[in-house]
């Protein structure tokens, strides 16, 4: 399926807005919905693993060593749930 964007002419758009491919939510970057953002303070992080399961999106990437990495701001909407659960103040909202 070729990409459809705000300049695609009507006759090249799919009917009903159907999307003929899987996993397409990745293409919809929702980070700009955010009004405040979480900041990751790596020095304070104990890698306890409490933050990433509560993220309603997939905005906290976890690597192969099961360690969390910095936020993916393309999708983080700034809800603050991760900051709330962090026992070590390793995530602050600003």
């Amino acid at each position: 399926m070729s990409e459809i964007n705000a300049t695609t002419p009507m006759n090249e758009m799919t009917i009903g807005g159907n999307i003929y491919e899987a996993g397409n939510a990745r293409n919809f970057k929702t980070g700009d919905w955010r009004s405040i953002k979480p900041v990751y303070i790596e020095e304070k992080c104990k890698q306890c693993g409490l933050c990433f399961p509560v993220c309603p999106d997939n905005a906290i990437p976890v690597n192969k060593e099961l360690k969390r990495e910095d936020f993916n701001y393309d999708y983080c909407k700034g809800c603050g749930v991760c900051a709330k659960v962090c026992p070590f103040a390793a995530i602050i909202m600003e």
Partner: protein
Amino acid sequence: MSIRERLSGNEASATAMKQINPDVVAAFPITPSTEIPQYFSTFVSNGTVDTEFVAVESEHSAMSACIGAEAAGSRAMTATSANGLSLMWEMIYIASSLRLPIVMSLVNRAVSGPLNIHNDHSDAMGVRDAGWIMMFSENNQEAYDNLLMAHRIAEHKDVMLPLMVCQDGFITSHSIENIMLEEDSEVKKFVGTYKPEHYLLNRNEPIAVGPLDVQPYLFEHKAQQADAMRASKQVILDVAKDFEAWTGRKYGLFEEYKLDDAELAIVCVNSTAGTTKFVVDKLREQGVKAGLLKLRVYRPFPGEEISKALAHVKAVAVLDKSDSLNSAGGAIFTDITSSFQVHKVNVPTINYIYGIGGRDTKADDIESVYKDLEYVAKTGDLGIPYRYLGLRR
């Protein structure tokens, strides 16, 4: 070979559905369409159809189930009337915008209130701009025939729109008349199997149906629906041609009854056309050049074709069995008069709201309309063009 039978309009519709043998029927009972799912559920119980019958808890769910079934890639049908259609309202628009060719049998009844279960067209006219193809049926035969043609039209790749087949509640839905049925195997051959290009249950192509359609997209998707509606006109005619070759019964976008040389014309839909034909025949014997244009396809609206067909008459009366309560006129009247304006036809045209809430419309009533038309044709005086027929004042 056609089979001669006698059936009510509801029996005829249920028989068509039995022969079509859709994958899913989801329906909720409401007078006067109740018999359709009732008969159909007996076909399911007897094993005469393979259909999954979903006994839903409301019409909103009925339409939702049909939407799910069609999106999954199956053929879905339903039947309803009046407030049942009102409860479907939200999903009616979802069905057409998702381009799901659901077929509905709509047995026309007054939308309450005050509470009324009898025939008028306020249910159908309420969804006239919802993006559904709308076909009207004079009698049980047309209700049956329109349903047999419905899927071929709705599922055509240039169309992909839902379609409703209307008939008059009680007047035709509960009256037993002669009918010609076609053989099961022939119907199956004519209707064919539904092979959608994209569908949810295709494991080789995972798809998303109904995603968020924000400012850069919805306008174009609506225009696509409008394009499909325009394209459906030719598809309706092509399918009618195939149908005629098969059954010998001829259909167009509308029927012209003694209209060629007519001077006074009535436009109406559904069973009133039968009464009007009787009156036309009677007046013709008296030398009055009366004629009828019976609209079969209301959406897409054949404005250009109607304008051409009526351009030669001296006066037209459009009968609307639903009052738009808009101080401008009924739905069919305003559609026809605006088509006249666009296509530069200048025929004096008046509107009658009639038969509301099942009020009987007799031959004498129709004759009085032709009398009024005689006066309009002679004097050119339209008087008040937005009129009522059979109203106590």
